[in-house]
């Protein structure tokens, strides 16, 4: 790569806003009547006679500037509603920006979904040709890659069967295989790698890695940290329609995960405000999460804070955490049973429990943590929360002379964790 190389994607001041209606119920498909009412109301509104609806501008994207160089694989990260998908849709030309401009050099293909335009009545072969062509492949290109596509999808025997008779697994495998054989200069991907069974997911990711290595510039939107780590070389974080981080991947991931955690805490606060309605008496938040390199295995430390928003005090409680692997299976449990007896929460009070696992003998990968609070003796759930912490990521490491690497197909077995916990407040 030469230094004075021109960017392959140039984004300059891209903004886009939507207007949101208030007071009225969300009405995405207005009728002719609505339009008529609007026309009649407008002059009245100008005269200040009718209250009518109230519109608010919501900036999905605000002044986005980015340069992406040829061959870069950029992870576009952000919490839900941050605007990352809107940006991808603008680059894919599906929707238009309100202001600003972008230049894309070379052939661009987008994989915002797999199997666009698949028709259940058409055969596998017919769908390959139509889908391929809508994704931007020429007939000659599809002819050339046809064998690779069917080989990769493993549906050779069903080529002339209508797709409606395919299992859903076969359908996504075929759909992904077509998209994965595109050879554009720029590829825009929106969370489509997580299709099929575990083995196919791994092959898909390998395939995308190869595409990336072949020099294709990729803009990749995903929430799956392990996938991002696997293929991306640069991280861009978008929050509330603005680029808040642009740089190396690891720092980008950290920025994103922090935002994610903030969002969770916010959700918790909202829950608290709705307390009277939902009768939620407890709140929970995670603090000081850290994963550090240990002697042999990494170690994990975090604090859980339980708030009692209720009027009365609660006694003899149990706090439990479950570690969930990427297949959504609980694999390890940590419980405050270890504290002598249950813990008490005064009215309006809180408890902070520190969990620490010195030797986290899990395989590298992404784990989420679910928490629950129950009375110690009857286990009626008082409070439960999935993904109480931002996902815990265990990096690749070496132990017993082996190197352990992230693998999305790893079905981490249940383990008994050696953990400590103490109430620190």
């Amino acid at each position, binding site marked *: 790569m030469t230094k004075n190389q021109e960017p392959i994607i140039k984004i300059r001041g891209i903004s886009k806003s939507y207007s949101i209606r208030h007071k009225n119920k969300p009405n995405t498909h207005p009728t002719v009547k609505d339009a008529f009412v609007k026309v009649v109301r407008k002059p009245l509104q100008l005269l200040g006679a009718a209250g009518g609806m109230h519109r608010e501008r919501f900036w999905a994207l605000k002044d986005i500037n980015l340069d992406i160089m040829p061959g870069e694989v950029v992870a576009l990260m952000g919490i839900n509603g941050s605007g990352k998908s809107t940006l991808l849709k603008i680059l894919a030309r599906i929707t238009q920006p309100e202001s600003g401009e972008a230049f894309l050099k070379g052939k661009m293909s987008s994989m*915002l979904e797999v199997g666009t*335009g698949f028709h259940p009545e058409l055969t596998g072969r017919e769908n390959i040709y139509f889908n391929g062509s809508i994704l931007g492949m020429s007939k000659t290109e599809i002819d050339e890659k046809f064998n690779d596509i069917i080989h990769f999808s493993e549906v050779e025997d069903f080529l002339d069967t209508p797709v409606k008779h395919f299992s859903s697994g076969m359908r996504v495998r075929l759909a992904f295989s077509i998209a994965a054989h595109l050879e554009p200069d720029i590829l825009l991907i929106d969370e489509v790698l997580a299709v099929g069974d575990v083995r196919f997911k791994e092959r898909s990711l390998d395939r995308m890695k190869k595409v990336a290595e072949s020099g294709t510039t990729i803009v990749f939107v995903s929430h799956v940290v392990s996938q991002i780590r696997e293929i991306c070389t640069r991280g861009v974080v978008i929050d509330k329609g603005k680029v808040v981080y642009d740089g190396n991947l690891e720092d980008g991931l950290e920025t994103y995960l922090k935002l994610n955690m903030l969002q969770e805490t916010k959700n918790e606060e909202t829950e608290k405000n709705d307390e009277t309605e939902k009768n939620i008496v407890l709140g929970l938040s995670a603090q000081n999460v850290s994963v550090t390199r240990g002697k042999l295995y990494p170690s994990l430390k975090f604090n859980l804070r339980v708030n009692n928003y209720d009027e009365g005090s609660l006694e003899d409680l149990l706090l439990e955490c479950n570690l969930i692997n990427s297949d959504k299976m609980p694999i390890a449990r940590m419980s405050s049973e270890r504290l002598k007896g249950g813990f008490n929460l005064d009215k309006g009070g809180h408890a902070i429990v520190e969990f620490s696992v010195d030797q986290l003998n899990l395989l590298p990968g992404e784990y989420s943590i679910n928490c629950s609070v129950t009375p110690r003796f009857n286990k009626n759930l008082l409070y439960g929360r999935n993904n109480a912490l931002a996902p815990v990521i265990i990096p690749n490491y070496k132990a017993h002379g082996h190197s352990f690497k992230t693998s999305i197909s790893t079905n981490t077995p249940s383990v008994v964790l050696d953990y400590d916990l103490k109430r620190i407040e």
Partner: protein
Amino acid sequence: MEKVQITHISPDNTLALEWRELLDNTELLRYFIWRNFKVRYKQTIIGAAWAIFKPLILMVVFTFAFNKVGSVETGSETVPYPIFAYAGLMFWTFFSQNINQVGTSFVTFQGIINKVYFPRVILPISIITTGIIDFAFSLIIYFGLMAYYGIAPTLLGTILFIPLIIMTSLAILGVGIFAAALNVKYRDVAQVIPFFIQALLFLTPVIYPVSAVPASLQWVLYINPIAGVVDTAQASLLGIRDVQWHMLAISVATTILTLVVGLTYFKAKEREFADLI
């Protein structure tokens, strides 16, 4: 060095269609036509033969209801009612069926519009082209009727035949694309189209000849583009009477007008499709 294609993305406020882009996508257009055709007749017993049966059945019903019961005549001694009705119905069926399909096309294909970029105008054009193939099938019965009634093709009819198909296609595109763009935002349009078509049938000289309309009011009929097509088809193909050129001009003018209005409205709204669907 190969010329690198540069895509420039910016807010598009122009109203002119990018025909160049359409030309670059002719292969995709072909795939859309091929897919429409395949999908339409999958899981049907007689397949493409439906294209023949629809106008044929209507012709039989019309002959019974309007000619035998209602005593509507063709206005010509030599041309029997069935072939008169069929000549009009070929064009009418082409028009009415495709107006309906084009009018709902952007909503029908929303799954694709939301996920992939391509010149959206490909959708209506592919539907109309599929309609032309159906039209070609319906000609088989027409030739059969000509042979049966011993009516020879006229020179003028042969010359005007293709222009009439083109004019019908353009009318479908104009009215249809306007309805389709409107339907993206206001879904009631899909409900209105069949009603509109039903009403329009009675304002089109398919059932009755134009000569049955008082002479002073005939020009009103020709405001409807398809009325001009149907009347000219009957006049030129069957030689019922002379082609009313000045009246046809009214239909041509309204066709061009609807086409300009339809395409302009479509272009103005196209950029919002993905946000609205």
